[in-house]
Structures are given as C-alpha cells and as structure tokens.
C-alpha cells in the first residue's frame, strides 16, 4: 500500500510544490485547508499529473476545538504530516491591534502545536511516522519588522526540537525546516535578493530529500544557515540599533 502524506495548510505555493513532489514519489495525499473550494482544482490537477489519490478535507488551524475530530475523521492516517500553514501578518497593525497580533501567534504557533500534539500522540503509539514543521529563519532572531511572526516561529522551532527529543525513542522522526525567502504569494509584493530566494519547487525537493535522509534541521536555501549564523552573532548592543 502506498504511503500517505497529510499537508496542513494546502493552499500555499509551498504546499502545492510539496504535494507534487511527494505525489511524484508515489505518496497518496490528503490536502487540508480552511477553504476546501480552493482545493478542488488542485485535487484534480495532482491526480492527473502525479497519478495518485488525493483527498481534500477542511481544516482550520485557528479552530483548536475542531482538531481532535479533524484528525479522527481523515480518510487515511498519514505516514508523513507536513505542517505548512502560517501567517506573516501585518506587524505594524498587530502592534496596536490585539486581534491581528493574536492571529499571527495562533496561526504560527498555537494552532500548529495543537494539531501536531494530536498527530504526535498517534504516531508515538504506532511507533512510526514523520512530522515536518515549516518554521522560518525569522525565528532565529527577533527584529522590528516582523517580531510577532518571528517569535511565534521561534516558539515553533523550540517545540519541534522538544518533540523530536521526545519521539526519538519511539522511532517517530521530526524534521524542522527553516526556509529563508521563498518566491510565494506570501512575499508577492516584497523585493527579495535573488541568491537568497528559493523557488517553492526547490524547497519541496529539499524537504523530500531531508525526509528520506531523516535529517533533523534544514535551512533552505542552505546558504541561510551561514547568513543566520552571521546575524545571530551580531552583538545585541549593535543589533538593536539596526533597521531590520
């Protein structure tokens, strides 16, 4: 029987690339997103191009109460779960508007923790499975332009690290992915430097390979590891004066 991959937050560009990548390697897919209508075209497209079964299910990361039932009712229990959803949000607005701020924290941290707790408990029992969390390099150091997003991602990174530690003995693998700039809708109107910007397809390739090789933490593009090393090493006294 073919393996199944569950993609949470399946309407993003990165999810589409991941679905194609895992589909082309024979995984059947479960695509989950808030708006299922947006998924129907994707469903047929991936079934036709990648020749795999695709199920679509509604999933709302912010509706914590629904998560148990969501996981209980999905048509196929997944071998790989990829948590892609996230929200960059509007930093300036969120500084004075709690609702916007909470939405960023919920989407990037609380919602992800809630659903992955459920997945982790199931996989721990079965003693198999892979959990992939898409975090961000923005979680490595807070900066004024996006520290709500960044701090939520920092929390998510720490969560994934703890989860990996816990699940190691039961044979469940946890992969933390830290993308830098990725050419997606999320940053449609932001100009990013070419050599540091990955295409969704490259990110999906990197993630698939990391799952196969059971890597723990990856940066994509890989160069971000060195960029972030440099950024993390800037003394706080200097860093706080920078316009970042």
């Amino acid at each position, binding site marked *: 029987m073919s393996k199944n991959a569950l993609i949470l937050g399946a309407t993003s560009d990165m999810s589409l690339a991941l679905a194609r990548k895992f589909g082309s390697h024979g995984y059947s897919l479960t695509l989950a997103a808030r708006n299922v209508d*947006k998924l129907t*075209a994707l469903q*047929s497209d991936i079934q*036709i191009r990648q020749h795999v079964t695709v199920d679509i299910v509604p999933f709302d990361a912010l509706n914590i109460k629904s998560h148990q039932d969501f996981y209980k009712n999905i048509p196929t229990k997944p071998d790989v779960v990829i948590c892609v959803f996230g929200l960059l949000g509007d930093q300036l607005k969120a500084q004075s508007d709690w609702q916007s701020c909470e939405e960023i924290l919920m989407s990037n941290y609380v919602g992800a923790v809630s659903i992955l707790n459920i997945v982790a408990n199931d996989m721990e029992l079965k003693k198999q499975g892979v959990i992939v969390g898409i975090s961000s390099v923005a979680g490595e150091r807070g900066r004024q332009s996006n520290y709500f997003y960044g701090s939520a991602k920092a929390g998510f990174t720490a969560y994934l690290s703890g989860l990996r530690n816990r699940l190691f003995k039961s044979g469940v693998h946890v992969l933390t992915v830290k993308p830098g700039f990725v050419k997606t*809708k999320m940053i449609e*109107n932001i100009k990013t430097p070419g050599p540091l910007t990955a295409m969704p397809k490259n990110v999906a390739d990197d993630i698939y390979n990391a799952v196969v090789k059971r890597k723990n933490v990856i940066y994509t593009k890989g160069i971000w590891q060195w960029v972030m090393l440099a950024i993390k090493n800037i003394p706080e006294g200097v860093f706080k004066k920078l316009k970042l």
Partner: protein
Amino acid sequence: MKKLITNWNNYPVIEADEISFDYDPELSSKLNGTSTIAHGNGRCYGDASLSSSVINTLRFDKILSFDVKQGIITCQSGILLSDLLEVIVPQGWFLPVTPGTKFITIGGAVASDVHGKNHHVDGSFSRHIVSMTVLTGSGETMVCSKLKNAHLFWATCGGMGLTGVVLAVTFNLKKIQTSFIRQKQVKAENLDEAMVLFAEHSDFTYSVAWIDCLKTGKQFGRSILILGEHAAQEEVSYKHKKLTAKDKSLFSVPFNFPSFVLNEWTVKAFNALYYAKNHQKVMDATVHYDGFFYPLDSILNWNRIYGNRGFVQYQFVLPLKESKEGLKNILTRINKKGMGSFLAVLKLFGEQNDLISFPMEGYTLALDFPMKPGLLEFLDELDEVVADFGGRIYLSKDARMRSQIFWETYPNAKTFKEIVKKYDPENRYVSNMSKRLMLKD
C-alpha cells in the same frame, strides 16, 4: 507595484501593474474596474497583451479533467503547452494544433487562435475547442462553444483577450502511437519550385518551409520544405517505442547580443550554411516531436540574439490566387533593402474563414527583423503591398501596424468590434493593441 513588462521580441517595453490569481473568484475580487488585459507567458511578439495593468495568468494552471480514453482535456488558461505535453504524451495523446513554441499558455493559444504546421489539414486551435469559460468584461463567467454563446466564442478565438479573460478550456487531443515524427525534407531551388512542392505534398499532415529571403537570381526564394507524420509503432526502433515528452533545454543565450551581430552578411552566411547542410535533394529521418515542432525552444532566450533594441516579427498571409505574385513582390523589396530576416518561414494554409482569426487559404510568410532605423517605415510599405494583394497581418506578431490597414484587411472587423462591445461594454479589457487598432471606443 509597477513592473517592466514586454513580450518575446523586447519591443515595446512598458511599465504595468500586475494582478495574479489562483482561483476564479479571486480574480473577480482583484479586478477593481481599471482597464486591464490578460497576459500569459509573454511569447507573442507585439502589444496584444500589454497594457498599464495586466493579469498574469501563469498561476492559474491546473488541469481539471483528462479523459484518457477519448482524449478530451479541460485545463485552466495559464497552463503552458510544455506542461500539458508532459501529461498527455505519455498517455498517447498530442496537441491538436501547436505553434512553433511550447512555451505559450492555453489562454494565449485561444486568444491568438494559433495555427501550426498542420493548418491545411486540421485548421487552427479553435477548431478543436469543445467549450470554454470566459470572464467577460461585464463581470459574468460565461460558458461558450460553437453552439452556445457562439458570438462570444468566435470573438474570443483570435480576439486578443478583448472579450475578457479565458478561464478554462476543454479541447480534443490528437491520438499518437509514438512520440516520434517521420520527417521528410525536400530542397527547392527557388520559390516557384517551393510552391509546387507544397501543392504536391499537401497530403502530409505537417508541412512548413524554411526560406532564404536574401537570395537573388535563379535561386530567388530557395527553400527547404519540411514535412512530417506522426510515426506509427512499427515505424520506430525498439528504444523509441516508449512515449516520452522531452523537455531538455540544450543551451541558453546568456545575455542580449550587441546589435551589430545580426546584419545582412551574417544572415546570408547563416542561410548559405543552412541550405547547404541538406546535401541531398530529399532527406528522410525519424525525429522526436520536440525537435520537429520546437527547434528554437532548445535555445532558451534565443530572442536575446537581437540585442537590447529587440526585433519585430512580421507575418502575413496572402490569398492563394495572389500568393505567388505577392510573395515575389515582397521578397524582392526585402532583398533590395537588404533587410535580412534570420528566420523566415513559409507555409500554405488551408481554408479558414472565421470572425477574427488570422488564417485564410493561401501562403503565409513569417519574418524576423532586428529593430533598426528605417524598419518601421519599411514595414508600413510592406503593409500596403499585403493589403493590395488582399492579405492581412497576424495580430499576435504585430506591434506597429496602422489601424487603417487592420480595418481594410480584416473583413469582419466591424462585427468583431460590435460583439466585443456587447461583452465588454465598459472597456474593462483594453490593450495597447486595442488602442492602436481602435478596437474599443
């Protein structure tokens, strides 16, 4: 955010806002009443998809259904032919009609009503469309076909995006047994012989001729006629039996060449070599469809050889009766001017008489001219000749024709404009071309 946008010939270049979308309702919600025009992969050679606001359709590229038994496919308009080929060829199907590049979108194929080497047998792309949905200027999503909302259908095929945005297209595919083409090349000493050969070989599904526009005297219009048929299983060797879509790019032109690289002498030298490589009168071969249909696609960014100034494509068709005299007249003018065309392609169209589509029965010639002083005036002169012979210019390759020539040479222009007006009463879809040719009031 304003972006610089141009089409394949780098002329003209304009600054535009870009709207992109993934889902049908998303597009409607992003349109704010500003005039705009759909823009696919930017492979046309003119200003048909240029406007101060453009809708980038490339993200809208999903395949919605594929009946592998009947060969009927439905896809969203932003998908590239190259992506479609990868899906359909391994299942034993091919595009019913394809132009000389696979890097165009299906929406573009409809808006240009593209033709291919099989026009004399299979007509243009519109002939194979079962139905399509269009987001019209009045904001309605309408299904149209040759039977349903036929006016909208015919004004959208070859209509350069002026009725609205093509959203999804259902069309029939062509059955193939292998991914190879049985190719036959026949050398023609001159234009007269080339035209005789075209007529003699009209039973071939695919036919086109490379023509040397700079040769004078006895070899005036010397050509190589290239013919093809899809190869059957028993016609290919064992290793070629598997159906494969090949998508290898061999070479990419890394930068814009300096403008002096292409001149009369380098083009003459190229033509001499190209003609001489066929050392026999008739040469047969079995070749992969990719090389047969898309020879230039293997050189990514080949448009850069024309340099920063860009180039102009010029493609016209002449009625069959007038073709010989007309072609001679035009080729002689090109000769005299020494306006070397690096790529010149001659093809005999079959009958077609649609609302606004380009093809009509007769010879069509496609030429590339590097942009240089005096060229636009020269092309205006050619326009007059084409019009005098009862021919017309292909809108997808046009960035400069005067409006008066368009109105003289497209007999249904008035009806077309009226239908467009009906579906886009408030001029929501406007391009530089529609302004230039006065297609909208």
